[in-house]
């Protein structure tokens, strides 16, 4: 694991905590790639033929595949290892954050004293049920748990947790999706120069911060329902010297005026909300978008467009990694939802971009300069890292 870019809210670890986090990230990559990489052979080689023999036809959807795969010893072992490893990620980080308190909260407060950006907290924001109902991806306390005044602990846990989870493959700033999107948009739409940008569901601001670099003349805003992650995001952005305006706000009921933003985006937010919330957020994104502006949501690939095995693999987290809303997203037709919200069908667009850190830059550039990318074929998962986005321009 390459080192995470240092900022003033990073938590010190002991020698052994550092060693443990490094190991857990090596272990996760092994389980994911070396053991998980065998799942498709298990499926094709024995699970699918046995299913066909027993039932008389091939598994027709991901549920068929799941029932058959979860009875297979290899898949059970992989699942058991995945689950344990996910728990180990959080366990490897928690003691250092507990120890860092309350100094960590104080550091965040100090970083906010002479800000380049701003922070607006709103104690009236209620934590929605889809956030409070589940420790998403098994993170103890989820995004919103608050332990005393000025608390940033969940922000710190998420920041380091995502880094260990991705084994640093998200880049030193953990911003690979946001940076890939920003660069892709810049190349694809050279005349589009957003003055005001909004990220919905920003957590600690990983994926919106690169927009400050890519569109240096813009004003970057970001919202989240959780005060601890907003405080952390603000302190982190200030520590990196990036002007960002953080707001504690619910994307379903934003307090921004109509037609305030040129670009409204989110990164992996939808799959952690409910179907209803998703529709409310889309409607709100449209409301706050200026005419001619762009809305784009980066998300997981949609299972409806995959073969049943890939869909099973993607939705595994929904069942076993506390991602209860994964399927609400992966089964939603976003194009239809955008049209329902008032966007014109001809203004709908999709983005599929190689990862900016994983792909050579000319490959990245070619993907952004070529004919409009369609997020319709993913290939076997894990062959290369691509990020997918679903968007729409607002008429006018």
């Amino acid at each position, binding site marked *: *694991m*390459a*080192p995470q870019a240092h900022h003033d809210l990073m938590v010190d670890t*002991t*020698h*052994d905590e*550092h*060693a*443990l986090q*490094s*190991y*857990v990230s*090596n*272990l996760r990559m*092994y389980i994911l790639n*070396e*053991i998980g*990489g*065998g799942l498709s*052979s*298990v499926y*094709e*080689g*024995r699970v*699918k*033929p046995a299913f066909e023999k027993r039932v008389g036809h091939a598994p027709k959807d991901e549920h068929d595949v799941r029932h058959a795969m*979860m009875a297979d010893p*290899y898949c*059970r*072992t992989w*699942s*058991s*290892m995945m*689950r*344990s*490893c996910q*728990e*180990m990620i959080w366990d*490897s980080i*928690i003691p250092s*954050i*507990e*120890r860092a*308190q*309350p100094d960590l909260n104080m550091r965040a407060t100090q970083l906010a004293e002479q800000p380049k950006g701003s922070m607006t907290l709103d104690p009236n924001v209620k934590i929605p049920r889809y956030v*409070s109902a*589940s*420790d998403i991806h*098994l993170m*103890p*306390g*989820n995004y919103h*748990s608050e*332990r*005393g005044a000025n*608390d940033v*602990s969940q922000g710190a*846990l998420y920041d380091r947790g995502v880094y260990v989870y991705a084994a640093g493959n998200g880049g030193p700033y953990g911003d690979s999706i946001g940076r890939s999107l920003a660069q892709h948009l810049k190349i694809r739409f050279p005349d589009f120069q957003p003055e005001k940008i909004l990220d919905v569901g920003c957590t600690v601001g990983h994926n919106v911060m690169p927009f400050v670099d890519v569109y240096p003349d813009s004003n970057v805003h970001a919202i989240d329902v959780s005060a601890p992650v907003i405080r952390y995001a603000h302190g982190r952005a200030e520590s990196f010297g990036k002007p960002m305006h953080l707001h504690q706000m619910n994307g379903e009921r934003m307090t921004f005026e109509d037609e305030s933003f040129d670009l409204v985006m989110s990164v992996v937010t939808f799959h952690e909300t409910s179907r209803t919330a998703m529709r409310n957020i889309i409607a709100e994104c449209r409301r706050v978008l200026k005419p001619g502006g762009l809305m784009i949501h980066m998300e997981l690939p949609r299972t409806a467009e995959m073969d049943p095995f890939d869909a099973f693999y993607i939705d595994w987290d929904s069942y*076993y990694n*506390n991602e209860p809303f994964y399927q609400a997203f992966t089964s939603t037709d976003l194009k239809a939802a955008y049209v329902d919200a008032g966007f014109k069908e001809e203004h709908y667009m999709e983005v599929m971009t190689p990862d900016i850190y994983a792909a050579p830059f000319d490959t990245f550039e070619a993907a952004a300069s070529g004919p409009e990318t369609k997020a319709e074929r993913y290939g076997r998962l894990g062959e290369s890292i691509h990020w997918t986005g679903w968007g729409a321009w607002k008429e006018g």
Partner: protein
Amino acid sequence: MSDKIKITPVNRGKRPAFFDDPAIDQLMAIVMSMSAEMSVLYDRVDTIERLLDKKGTLSRDDIEAFRPDQGTEDERNVRRNDYIARLFRIIHEERESLVSHDKMDEYNSLMDELAKS
């Protein structure tokens, strides 16, 4: 120390059992944790050896303060990955032993061919 917080799960729900006997899932979790403890210990020994190589003497503070540079971290990554591969060889071996569907077709058609010749 009244300020010391506790970060605990608030809504994790029931832990899924993947095997028919949940004790196997528990054992898997224990084995994985033990593997981590051993790796941590190995890194600590590695730190001690590096400090001794460099200074010929060491203190606990030296060990705690030691942070691997990128070269050291790269070496450790190689060693950890080899260690993981040895430890979980039995699982990986099952993957290697699987004959993919295509291979089977290939094999059958080869058999047909041989039968005809």
